[in-house]
């Protein structure tokens, strides 16, 4: 199998991110600390394994690790995230 063929993108984890953050996250911005690219979560590459690994679409630097454990989701974030939420 061609390397890299296992990725999709951050849109796919919109559900689990919304569950954890209680807000829509695929349109959230993230600035990569490695290459400086500012891109939205939905545009990031998503790799599937035991959980999910989200990577910068520019340089592949780690952006987040998502572990789905029984009854809870654990997410560790890397880089600078900008999460906007409409105030009520």
């Amino acid at each position, binding site marked *: 199998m061609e390397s890299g063929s296992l990725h999709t993108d951050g849109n796919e984890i919109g559900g689990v991110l919304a569950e954890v953050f209680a807000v829509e996250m695929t*349109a959230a911005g993230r600035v990569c600390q490695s290459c400086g690219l500012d891109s939205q979560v939905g545009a990031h590459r998503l790799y599937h394994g035991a959980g999910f690994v989200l990577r910068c679409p520019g340089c592949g630097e780690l952006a987040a690790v998502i572990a789905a454990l029984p009854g809870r989701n654990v997410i560790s974030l890397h880089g600078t995230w900008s999460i906007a939420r409409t105030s009520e």
Partner: protein
Amino acid sequence: MGRQRLPWREVAIREIRPETPSAKTLVLDVPGWPGHAAGQHVDIRLTAEDGYQAQRSYSIASAPGEPDVELTVERIDDGEVSPYLTEEVGPGDGFELRGPIGGYFVWDPARDEPVLLVGGGSGLAPLMAMLRHRRATGTAVDARLLLSARTLEDVLYRDELEELAADGETAPPVVRITLTREDPPPGWSGFRGRIDRDMLTELGLPPTERPRAYVCGPTPFVEEAARLLVELGHEPARVHTERFGPTGG
């Protein structure tokens, strides 16, 4: 405050519509559906008798404001979920669903920008929600679709696409199809072969018009189409992408 986290809902299939030899549209009854935006998806979860669960994401193909939630499922032969959803289930059967999900791959007609839609195979589904929404809102925003399909028979919503493109009442979208795996039928006026620069150029809406592009399909298709769009001069930030991969089945 007190915002609900995204709940799983029990939904029931009301109707099943065959689309192509390998794809079906499931029309769902979703109690308490909050409404959606064009381009959003849902997660669905199937639970076997022994407790084993499988979860997948499917784009919503129906337009916002339509009473039904419609998902189009393409059968992946060695898939775990899609053979079940396309071959086994019937009206009245149910599963769990949560959504709507997504804010990045979403089209808002109020933006009043031209839209460039590029779809590969069943990647047409969320783009169809956009075209259906465009018609329902009556906006005259310039919209162009380039669809890549293996064969003409594999083109989802074919009759509806023809109707949309022929619609004389409002500015009809431009719909162009390229066939990658068969000799086109006699009289074929569409493209042939994999998506390329010339097709995207001929489709129109050059970067100077500052369109917003939505590209959806299998990962290699999306990577290539997005690369070509950026190479043609479209701003990367205006090229929205959604990929589905080998686990999509």
